[in-house]
């Protein structure tokens, strides 16, 4: 669907994207993650030609974006909807007219427009609010209008720039669920830009980690988070600090293995004491995964590691500089 290779973007002399390479397959939810200023929005805006790029190649549905003429760019934008952190709705229009706006721009006849808008508002669950002014809506409702508007022209790709960053956690989940539902229903490909790790974990199959315009990691979301590189670790700001004595080992639990069985099994098999110092359960896409941090005495370290090896668990001895 989207192929990026060696992409570079400069503002004046300053490079904000350097040598970015990745591709997004049809139907994927692809995350772009990084701190503020990493270049996420800029990357996204290159996709629908809101920004140009200086080197490398960026192909959307087989067409090189840089080589498109005005009509080509317009068509490209028709094929890609976009939603925003600040919703960017028109305050001078009501809900209906905001959703109808892209259709007006493209000269769709009034009758058809009406039908399409009501269909979209039905889809996002706001059909009863079509006459309301957008100022009177809540953040979540505004984003629903934004989604309806972005889908008005039946795009194949949906670009989301921090779409949930202005929303509270509960609304965030509702919007992510809505995105997933429309993705399924409309066979969309979604690019999801965010600085919220929870959002990527919940929503994305694969992700690109961006820092200061450089790729810091790319791959499946769960494997990136389950076996983070040092850079990623720094970025995800691990909240587990270390216990002074002994060795901390972090265990990850792939879906086949039950946590309790491992812990009790190990205690029984090795007959040693160890303590659980931390842990976290997280939702990845469709199942719950997690890790535990256990603290074992130096004396037992080798036996414990051997045992973990036998059990084919993911594990890691944590060093102090996390």
């Amino acid at each position, binding site marked *: 669907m989207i192929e990026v290779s060696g992409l570079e973007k400069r503002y004046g002399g300053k490079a904000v994207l350097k040598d970015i390479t990745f591709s997004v397959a049809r139907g994927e939810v692809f995350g772009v993650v990084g701190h503020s200023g990493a270049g996420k929005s800029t990357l996204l805006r290159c996709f629908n030609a809101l920004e140009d790029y200086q080197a490398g190649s960026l192909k959307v549905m087989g067409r090189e974006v840089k080589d498109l003429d005005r009509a080509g760019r*317009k068509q490209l934008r*028709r094929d890609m909807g976009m939603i*925003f952190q600040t919703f960017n*709705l028109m305050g001078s229009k009501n809900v209906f007219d905001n959703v109808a706006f892209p259709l007006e721009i493209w000269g769709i006849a009034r009758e058809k427009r009406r039908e399409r808008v009501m269909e979209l508002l039905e889809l996002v669950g706001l059909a009863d609010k079509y006459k309301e002014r957008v100022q009177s809506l809540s953040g979540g409702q505004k984003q629903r209008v934004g989604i309806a508007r972005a889908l008005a022209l039946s795009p194949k790709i949906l670009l989301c720039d921090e779409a949930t960053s202005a929303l509270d956690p509960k609304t965030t989940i509702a919007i992510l669920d809505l995105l997933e539902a429309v993705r399924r229903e409309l066979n969309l490909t979604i690019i999801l830009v965010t600085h919220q790790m929870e959002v990527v974990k919940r929503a994305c199959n694969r992700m690109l980690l961006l820092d200061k315009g450089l790729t810091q990691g790319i791959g499946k979301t769960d494997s990136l988070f389950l076996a983070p590189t040092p850079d990623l670790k720094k970025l995800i700001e691990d909240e587990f600090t270390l216990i002074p004595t002994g060795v901390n080992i972090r265990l990850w639990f792939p879906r086949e293995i039950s946590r309790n069985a491992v812990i009790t099994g190990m205690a029984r098999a090795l007959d040693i004491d160890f303590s659980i110092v931390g842990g976290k359960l997280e939702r990845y896409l469709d199942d719950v995964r997690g890790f535990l941090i256990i603290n074992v005495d130096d004396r037992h370290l080798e036996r414990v590691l051997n045992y973990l090896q036998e059990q084919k668990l993911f594990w890691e001895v944590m060093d102090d500089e996390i």
Partner: protein
Amino acid sequence: MKSDSGTQKLFLGLFFCGLALATFVLCLYLFSLSPKEAFQAIADSFARIREELFLSLWQTLCMVFLSTLFSAVIGFGLASVMIITGPQGLAPRPAVYAALDAVVDVLRSLPFIILIIFIMPLTRLVMGTAIGTLPTVLPLTVAAAPFAARIIEANFLEVDRGVVEAARSFGAGIGQIIFRVLLPEALPAIILNIAVLAIALLGYSAMAGAVGGGGLGDLAYRLGYNRFQNDVSVWCILVLVILVRCIQSAGNLLYRRLR
């Protein structure tokens, strides 16, 4: 809240009515007139000046309406070009922007009375003559258009850039962005500013009247000042006050309607 401010307005209104009545009574006493004689005098004065007053009002309305309309349209055009070619614009053209920017500021810095004289040859060329109500519309428009341009440019800049970006993201072109995004989003603020501009033009038109445009300012100057007919000046002022109130109220009303 609402009834509160309503009551306040009522009291204010009563207060000023009372004040006016007291002044009137005081005048009667000072000039030792009976109320009947006083009303008769007012009616006589009005009858004497009525035709000229209405003609002047009509001339003023023509000048203000036409020059506001033209300067708003020209200002909108200039502002659109400036917002597009400006540093943050959709198609930055520094040279074009700098040129417009300079022209607008030079025109704004000329005192109006100088401007009228300065462009008289142009007025004569375009309108056939430099004297009269309609020819005066030209200098008025030339004076007000740069103001309108600046005001509208500022109102356009106020429009959330994200909204423009959203419109671009689903394929809106530059023309569509100006007419269907910037204009409707900025319209309430523009209307308020245009009302202010129209009131300023009312003032300018009085000056323009003095050099041959006619209108209320001219009437007050010709008869009221030069011929010492103070009652004419008072009638002119009264009509001007009402005009200003009307323009401002219309602006406020439209603003509230559109917002």
